[in-house]
């Protein structure tokens, strides 16, 4: 009898639960929507197809990096090397295609493989050598930064002779009108996000990612090789970073070996704005995407309004705080 009663209340509560969850999800967009509405009212130039596409394109690389590092942050770790690692993957890809004259697809594989190796190495340092992720990936940051410069001889490697490479990011599979073409980079970004979201929520890998962030020792004592999975998470993030490397190299038609430093902070910021906790165990891809969009919308909007740069910086700081605060209020309810 008691059991029946519990089951009953369970059902009722569950409905309430899911519907409030749905509301929560919609509300998560509120900061972004407020921003978009605000900018649209402030400038007629903001809410234009071309500009919206520009915003999406500006979000793409940072968004992909953020999706990757989100996995690591959910395990309770951090990766400071993603920016410069992205550079290295771009440089390696260029090296393979331009200097070794390998087919483009091999160049893409090289980029992703480079990411997997570097990420995996960070993972080994964290999981096996028990280095704090901050240090392991700071080391990897310096390592990949230096290596990019060395391999590229501190000069960009241009894809001028490989116009197809540029099409990876800048071509458009979906062309609606002349003005309304969604560049592939944006599609790649969404594809990475969707695949990652599925992996994070629907696979064992995703489960372990959350579980390790929640209580690693309990997971280990459940007979799971947590070290292996942690390495896998860093390597997986590396693979995604490789995708970002391809995206940026193809957008710029060149691998720029000096670029990349600082991109990690933007990506981590997107993740945290998106509600992932730095102490691990929780986070969503949707949140991360929203976080990335908040940053790029903000940047774009303030520029459209021709706000002087120093005021742009101040305003960005204030709005990020406000957006996250809104999100916290939403969750508290």
């Amino acid at each position, binding site marked *: 009898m008691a059991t029946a009663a519990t089951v009953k209340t369970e059902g009722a*509560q569950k409905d309430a639960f899911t519907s409030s969850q749905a509301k929560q999800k919609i509300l998560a967009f509120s900061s972004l929507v407020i921003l978009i509405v605000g900018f649209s009212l402030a400038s007629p130039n903001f809410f234009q197809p071309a500009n919206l596409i520009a915003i999406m394109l500006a979000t793409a690389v940072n968004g992909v990096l953020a999706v990757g590092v989100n996995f690591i942050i959910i395990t309770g770790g951090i990766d400071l090397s993603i920016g410069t690692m992205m550079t290295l993957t771009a440089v390696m890809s260029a090296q393979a295609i331009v200097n070794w004259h390998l087919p483009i697809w091999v160049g893409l594989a090289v980029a992703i493989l480079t990411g997997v190796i570097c990420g995996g190495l960070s993972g080994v340092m964290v999981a096996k050598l028990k280095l704090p992720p901050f240090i392991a990936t700071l080391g990897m940051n310096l390592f990949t930064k230096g290596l990019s410069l060395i391999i590229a001889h501190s000069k960009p490697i241009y894809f001028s002779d490989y116009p197809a490479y540029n099409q990876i990011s800048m071509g458009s599979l979906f062309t609606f009108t002349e003005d309304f073409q969604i560049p592939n980079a944006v599609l790649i970004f969404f594809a990475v996000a969707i695949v990652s979201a599925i992996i994070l929520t629907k696979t064992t890998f995703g489960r372990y990612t959350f579980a390790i962030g929640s209580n690693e020792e309990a997971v280990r004592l459940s007979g799971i090789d947590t070290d292996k999975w942690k390495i896998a998470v860093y390597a997986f993030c590396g693979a995604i970073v490789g995708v970002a490397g391809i995206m940026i190299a193809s957008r710029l038609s060149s691998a720029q070996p000096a670029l990349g430093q600082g991109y990690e902070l933007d990506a981590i910021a997107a993740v945290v704005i998106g509600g992932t906790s730095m102490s691990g165990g929780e986070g969503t891809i949707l949140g991360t995407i929203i976080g990335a969009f908040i940053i790029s919308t903000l940047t774009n909007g303030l520029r459209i309004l021709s706000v002087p740069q120093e005021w742009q910086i101040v305003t960005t700081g204030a709005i990020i705080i406000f957006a996250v605060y809104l999100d916290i209020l939403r969750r508290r309810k």
Partner: protein
Amino acid sequence: MAEPLIVVKNLNKSFPGVHALKDIRFDLYPGEVHTLVGENGAGKSTLMKVISGVYQKDSGEILLDGKPVAIPNPKAAQKLGISIIHQELNLMNHLTAAQNIFIGREPKDRTGIFLDERTINKKAQELFGLLKIDIDPRVKIGELTIAKQQMVEIVKALSYDARVLIMDEPTSPLNDAEIEELFGIIRDLRSKGVAIIYISHRMDELFRISDRITVMRDGQYVDTLKVGETNLDHVISLMVGRSIEVTAPQVDLGANRPVMLEVRGLNRGKALKDISFTAKKGEILGFAGLMGAGRTEAARAIFGADPIDSGEIFVNGAKVSIRHPCDAVRHGIGYLSEDRKRFGIAVGMDVETNSAMASMGRFTGFAGFVKRKDIRKAAEDHVAKLSIKTPSLQQKLKFLSGGNQQKVVIAKWLIRNCDILFFDEPTRGIDIGAKQEIYSLLNELADAGKTIIMISSELPEILRLSHRIIVMCEGRITGELSASEATQERIMKLATQRETMVKAAAKQTVKE
């Protein structure tokens, strides 16, 4: 009797999805021990947290000395003279025992600026001495076993000199000797007029220490009984709403059962010395011993959670190498830890995920996808089987009561379906009804041919369930008893057979 010190009237408290306290009333007189009992999730801890300022009531009234009071935060409660030992440990692992006790009340040196570490340590040492606890005040809390950590919590609560002392399951990690010390202290405090609210699932304690007993069920007040005017069966029936049949003690198993697990010459630093034993198919092997005897260490070492210096492990007659818990689980060994919060559950994750955690391999389908339906089915079955009280399978473990968390851990290993299961203090913090359920579950598992190794500090439990009992002391196995020869006295004798004493005895025989 004098005026009541605390009166609680019509108190309500809800959490999302849970109406935890429904029109609760409660009163407390100076100089009494008022025990609060109820099943896991009945709302005992919640009520105490409202009284001690951790949670805010939704409605109702709390009167102190007849006057309504607001208790907005723990500090306010402290000021009103209410001190609490929480069910979960609330200690700063990186600080020393003494620093933990005096947090917020640190004595200063003559300058009035700097902390006086010596006085802190001295005062802590005095308190420990008073309770006959052997803890170095300068040792970091994180390095103590939970039993010792619990002692520190108790000392801390006592050190406030409160008028009202709330103890939420203070004895769950303690052994009998320590419980005796604690009761001595409680009696002492009672005679000084301190009012004590005491919560425990150990029914034998109720009648030894309480003056009155209040029973709660499903967040509701059931009844308050005077100890002299009631008996245990009555209390239990009020608690669970039905009577509980007690399982019969075990009998010896036939000697010809196949050996499932054999451990030979296991050594690990100073903690484990030459551990060798066998466990048979269908057997419940009890591990008895005092706190710190090394039972947990032994289980962890066999399970691969800690590295070993030497030793061999055989499963089903074949030698296996276990370097990591995943090796152990692969060979069909499961381990249910005594410290669930740290080692058993991921508090931020839901019931479903926690219960599937050890069996994800089984629940992984095509391309690494989780078989969500299967997990849900398994979790649902076990929630029902173990009567785990949770609003949904998606409830996060941190919102479950302690006992229900423990049941989720059990569910995890049941779902894994291991052949050999270590249960380390499986009934710690579990209500009497659930305890019986767990006992019959252990019996069922054994009947189904599983090998159960049960570590417990509750001797009656060991005696009732075990087919065979192994006793440890100071990292060694000091003896083995069959169910028929085991008595409390014989176990205690083996459990206190310290090495130093053995040596001294040996010396004496030589002299003679």
